[in-house]
Every structure is written in structure tokens, then in C-alpha cells.
């Protein structure tokens, strides 16, 4: 796991314009990949925060990551455990995560069990012990897990006002001691309006997990965060061997540099198709290649990437249907040496087909790969496979997330070619079963057409946002060179777009192809 870097603190407020200087609130890294960005830079220093959610939602792991990320010998973190998970088990399980730094336990990160005190003494004694421990250690971070248990136990003995007073005094002490604190509890959201704790804390972070059909969908929401702008909404989280990882709804793409205003045309690797596209795809466009099975969508995608590699543009192929060896074999058949580019590190084939992926995890994997190789071209083959790889609960978010990713990446000048399988119905020309034209700048439609007793292939450029394009329906074949456009447009047929054209010109005698039927030669 990459070590989460400490987020730089806010820049000091300017004193120009005669305004008094604002206080600088430093932001502490949470140690959770993606979370700092959701929080607007990290957790505000000296803030009192609450992490709530049902058991198993990842609360304890999150606060461990925060504690480990910020614990130092000079300002240790103290993890107070209160009648929750047994510490011995907690340490046993948490050390399985890569963020668990055993060297920090004991000195920089101290675990203190308050259970006996909570059971036997009153809130004053508990507060006294917390004050004593925090002061003695000069702690910079405090975690109380489970705070709800502490309050619940106390509430059974003393009144609500006493509990509120305890929280108030605790908050005052922690702030005055320059401590950033997280209280952990199995709260439910319905408690928020009536529970004064939620008013007193500076930040409230909610973790949920919902089972949908056979998969679990985990989400994080920032319900409250004083002093800084966080990204609103529900963010996907996952728990892996590296601990919790959060995926911002913006996918971190709101800060990518904008594409140049003057965009060059990129070859797709098929000269005649480039001509149909008015000279090639505009850099930073999103191209959709739609067609039924066997029409050469993946071949075209491979040529698009290979052409980029020839031009010195690194590429990523995110593939969801075929396995990488099939891809490289096909490319080899076309004389395109993808394997060499992979070895050089200018191409990555991402095979993303494990079940139950979240759309954000998948997109993060693509974004990571783009950063790794400095990709300028991206292939997503195919959108249908992409959607099928997702957990059912995430499919509803698919279009929205795809929209965000494609919008941000193309905005940064990365050219994307996505494929989508559509069924030809021989009555009309569909582009996709998705309403995804809003995702694409350009659409190339491939389809089968019955001509002269053969099922041939045609392509047409349906849409090109950046300029004019050919209106011709052109026949193409797949040869040893890949997709090759043949023949000028046919003027001896009408209704080619239906797949069952009507002859309008004279019929020419044609010899049968010899079996076994080969792929047509150009």
C-alpha cells in the first residue's frame, strides 16, 4: 500500500485587502486512500469527530488507519477501548492489514482499556483517567471505541444532562490539549436529531453496508464536517488487505489538467476510417464503436491502441470479456506487437473481471493504470462486460460513474475508445441498448448486411461532435492487417442500414467463395 502522504496544511490566509488573518487549520491525513480528498484535504487538526455505523461496516479499521498514520513518539495516539471488541482480538485482526505498523504499538500508539473503569466508576472517574493518560503521554490523537457503549452505560445510571456535561468537558479538554479525536460508535442515523453528541462534534462520518442480492455494497458519507468543504454524497468504500479505501464520487478527477484547446487528430489505425472521421479522431474525444458480435470491435480497438503506440502514445486496454492472451494473439495476427509495448511499460492490458467489483474500484484501477504508464489512449472493451463485472448493487451507478470518468479523462486530453455490443434487428439501426450517446463525442456503427448471398460487414460514422464526417456506409473486412475498409460506398443498393438492402442497380455475376470460407481479402 502506498503510504498516505500527509496532507499539506491550508495556506496561511492573506492579510492583503485589509482583512484580518484567518486561522490556519492544518489537515491530518486519515491514512485511508481516497478519504482525504473526500474530506477536502484531511481531518481538521484538533477536531472532535464521530465515526458511526453498524457492526462490520469498517469503523474500527478506519480509526486504526487514522491512528497509525498520525501516531508519533512525540505526539502518540491513544486508543481507548471500552467494552467493545476485545483488544487482544482487535490487535490480532488489525495486524493483518498492511497499514498496521507493529513498531508503533506501545510507544507511538498505545492501547488503553477503560472497560473496568467504566463498569465500576462514574463518568468523572473515566474523564479523570482519560485526562491523566492523555496528559502523561502528550497524545496528539485519541480514539474512543466504543464511545456509544460508554455513554449508554452512563445513561443508565445518570441523567442525560450529566452525560452531555461529560461530553462537553471531554471535548474541551481534548481541544485544549491539541488533540484530534475520533469517537466510534454503533449509532444509527435515526438517532441524529435527538442526540446532542452529533451537535457537539465537529465531524460525523457514516459507514454503511448493504447486502444486495449476493453482494455487499459499502458506502461512506460525510454527514458533517466543520470548517472545510467535503465532497457530498455517498462514496463507495472497500476493505482489502490494505485496509479501508474510499472512492470519491469525483474519482479525484476534478483536479486533472484541462485538455489543450487546439486538439490534433489521431489516427485510429485504419486509414479509410480516419478519412471517414474527417482526418482522424480528435484528441480527447470519447469514441463509441457499436456493433454485434464478430464485427471486429475488439480488432478495431486493438488497432487504435497499436497506432497510438506507433505514434509514441502510451495506452491502456481495460478488457472485460476476453483474456489478455487472446488480445495479444489477435494483435500478433495483425502484425501489431502489443507484447513488446507491455514489456516496455507503454501499454497495460487490464483484465478486470472479478465479480462484485464496485464501479469506483474498477475506475480507480483504470485511473491508476493511466497514471502508471502516462496513457494518452484508453480502450474499454466492452461497456457490457464492464457492467457485468460489477456487483448488482453498483450497476445502478454505472452510467453516472462512467459519465464522470469519461468526462474527466477526455477533459484531460485522454482519447477513449469504448466498444459496445448491440444486436442487429434488421429493421432499424441501434447504437446501443444504453442511452449513452451523451458519453460519446463520436459513434462508429458496425453492422452485418446481407448482400449477394453473403453476410458482409459495413461501417458508418454516425456522429462526430468535433466536425464533419463522411456519411458513407462502407464495407469492410477483417484481414491479416486487421479491419480494412474496402470498396467505395455502394450505390447499387438502398436501405443498407436495415441490414437487408434492396438492390437498385444491375446484378453482377459473382463466383462462390471456396470453402472453408476465408476472411475476405482486401
Amino acid at each position, binding site marked *: 500500500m502506498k503510504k498516505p502522504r500527509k496532507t499539506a496544511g491550508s495556506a496561511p490566509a492573506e492579510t492583503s485587502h485589509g482583512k484580518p488573518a484567518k486561522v490556519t487549520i492544518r489537515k491530518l491525513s486519515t491514512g485511508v486512500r481516497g478519504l482525504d480528498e473526500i474530506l477536502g484535504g484531511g481531518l481538521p487538526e484538533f477536531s472532535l469527530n464521530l465515526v458511526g455505523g453498524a457492526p462490520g461496516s469498517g469503523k474500527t479499521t478506519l480509526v486504526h488507519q487514522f491512528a497509525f498514520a498520525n501516531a508519533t513518539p512525540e505526539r502518540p495516539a491513544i486508543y481507548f*477501548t471500552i467494552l467493545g471488541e*476485545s*483488544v*487482544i*482480538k482487535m*490487535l*490480532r485482526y488489525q*495486524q493483518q492489514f498492511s497499514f498496521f505498523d*507493529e*513498531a508503533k*504499538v*506501545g510507544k507511538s500508539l498505545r*492501547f*488503553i*482499556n477503560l*472497560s*473496568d473503569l467504566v463498569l465500576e466508576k462514574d463518568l468523572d472517574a473515566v474523564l479523570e483517567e482519560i485526562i491523566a493518560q492523555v496528559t502523561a503521554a502528550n497524545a496528539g490523537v485519541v480514539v474512543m471505541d466504543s464511545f456509544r457503549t460508554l455513554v449508554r452505560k452512563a445513561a443508565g445510571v445518570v441523567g442525560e444532562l450529566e452525560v452531555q456535561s461529560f461530553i462537553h468537558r471531554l471535548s474541551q479538554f481534548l481541544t485544549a490539549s491539541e488533540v484530534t479525536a475520533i469517537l466510534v460508535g454503533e449509532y444509527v442515523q435515526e438517532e441524529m436529531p435527538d442526540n446532542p453528541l452529533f451537535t457537539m462534534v465537529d465531524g460525523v462520518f457514516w459507514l454503511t453496508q448493504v447486502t444486495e442480492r449476493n453482494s455487499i455494497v459499502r458506502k461512506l458519507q460525510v454527514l458533517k464536517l466543520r470548517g472545510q468543504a467535503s465532497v457530498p454524497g455517498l462514496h463507495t468504500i472497500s476493505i482489502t488487505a490494505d485496509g479501508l479505501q474510499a472512492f470519491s464520487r469525483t474519482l479525484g478527477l476534478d483536479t486533472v489538467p484541462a485538455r489543450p484547446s487546439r486538439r490534433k487528430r489521431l489516427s485510429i489505425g485504419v486509414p479509410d476510417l480516419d478519412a471517414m472521421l474527417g482526418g482522424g479522431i480528435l484528441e480527447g474525444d470519447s469514441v463509441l464503436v457499436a456493433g454485434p458480435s464478430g464485427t471486429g470491435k475488439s480488432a478495431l480497438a486493438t488497432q487504435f491502441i497499436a497506432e497510438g503506440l506507433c505514434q509514441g502514445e502510451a495506452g491502456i486496454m481495460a478488457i472485460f470479456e476476453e483474456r489478455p492472451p487472446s488480445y495479444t494473439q489477435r494483435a500478433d495476427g495483425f502484425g501489431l506487437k502489443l507484447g513488446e509495448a507491455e514489456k516496455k511499460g507503454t501499454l497495460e492490458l487490464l483484465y478486470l473481471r472479478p465479480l462484485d467489483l464496485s464501479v469506483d474500484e474498477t475506475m480507480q484501477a483504470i485511473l491508476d493504470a493511466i497514471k502508471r504508464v502516462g496513457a494518452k489512449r484508453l480502450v474499454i472493451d466492452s461497456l457490457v462486460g464492464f457492467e457485468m463485472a460489477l456487483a448488482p448493487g453498483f450497476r445502478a451507478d454505472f452510467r453516472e460513474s462512467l459519465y464522470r470518468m469519461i468526462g474527466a479523462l477526455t477533459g484531460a486530453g485522454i482519447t477513449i475508445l469504448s466498444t459496445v455490443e448491440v444486436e442487429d434487428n434488421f429493421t432499424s439501426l441501434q447504437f446501443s441498448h444504453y442511452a449513452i450517446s451523451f458519453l460519446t463525442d463520436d459513434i462508429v456503427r458496425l453492422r452485418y448486411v446481407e448482400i449477394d448471398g453473403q453476410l458482409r460487414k459495413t461501417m458508418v460514422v454516425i456522429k462526430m461532435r468535433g466536425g464533419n464526417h463522411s456519411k458513407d456506409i462502407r464495407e469492410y473486412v477483417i484481414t491479416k492487417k486487421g479491419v480494412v475498409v474496402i470498396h467505395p460506398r455502394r450505390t447499387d443498393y438502398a436501405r443498407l442500414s436495415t441490414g437487408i438492402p434492396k438492390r437498385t442497380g444491375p446484378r453482377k455475376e459473382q463466383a462462390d467463395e471456396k470453402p472453408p470460407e476465408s476472411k475476405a481479402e482486401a
Partner: protein
Amino acid sequence: MGWLNRTTPRIRDIARTLILFEGQRGQGGASEFPATDRMRPQLMRLMGNGGVHALLSRALVLATLEAPWLSNAAVNSDGDLGGLHDIGAEIDPEVFLEGRVILLAQLLGLLVTFIGPTLTWGLVHEIWPHIAPEDRDFGREQ
């Protein structure tokens, strides 16, 4: 019964070293198990009274399988080991020492099993910073 004996020769060496060290400190007269007593506050802070009681009780059960006379010992409700004051005077000192080594080794063995050698070493080192066992993995392979 192999699974019951989590101690390794190295753990026993460490246990023996700690017990002898405590004996040299002159604390042996006050308690039958001074090394265990010194560990208790650390363990209490970590896992509370109930946790220490459960862990020590388990260590005692396991140690009794090897040294049946330890059945005379008991873990009190406050996590204190007691019940051997009289027997300690009657039993052969070498046997008594070996029993205490077995008990402490079982306690360390349980800790190693639950939280791993590194964290267990951290606990031991916090209490006995001058004692430096050569093998911090307690003779175990992770």
C-alpha cells in the same frame, strides 16, 4: 496434546531469564510469581481485568498439564495469582522454579499466538527494557 503446548524452548529460555531477573531484583519474596505480577499492569491496561483473568487462567490450565502441582494455584478475581505461598515453601526449589517458568512461558506463548511475536516482544521489552532476548520471534516462525 501438541497443540496445547505453544511454548518453544526459546520462550522457556526467555521466561526463565525474566523469572531469574525478578529474583535477583529481590522481588521474589513478596510473590510466588513476580514476573507475572510485573506483567499484569501492562496487560490490565491493554485488556482490562477480565481479559487478564481469562488469559492467566488459560495459561495456568495449560501449565498444569505439565506441572500438575500448579493446580494448587488460582487466578483471583483481580487477576492476581495466588494459592502457592505454602506449597512454595515445601516444594523443591528447582521444581518450583520450573513450574513458574512453565506458567510464564504458557502466558507468553498465548500472547504470541494471539497478537504475534512482535507485539508480545513489545510488551516484554516495555517492562524489562534491559533484557534483550537474542531471538525476538520467540523461536516461532510467523
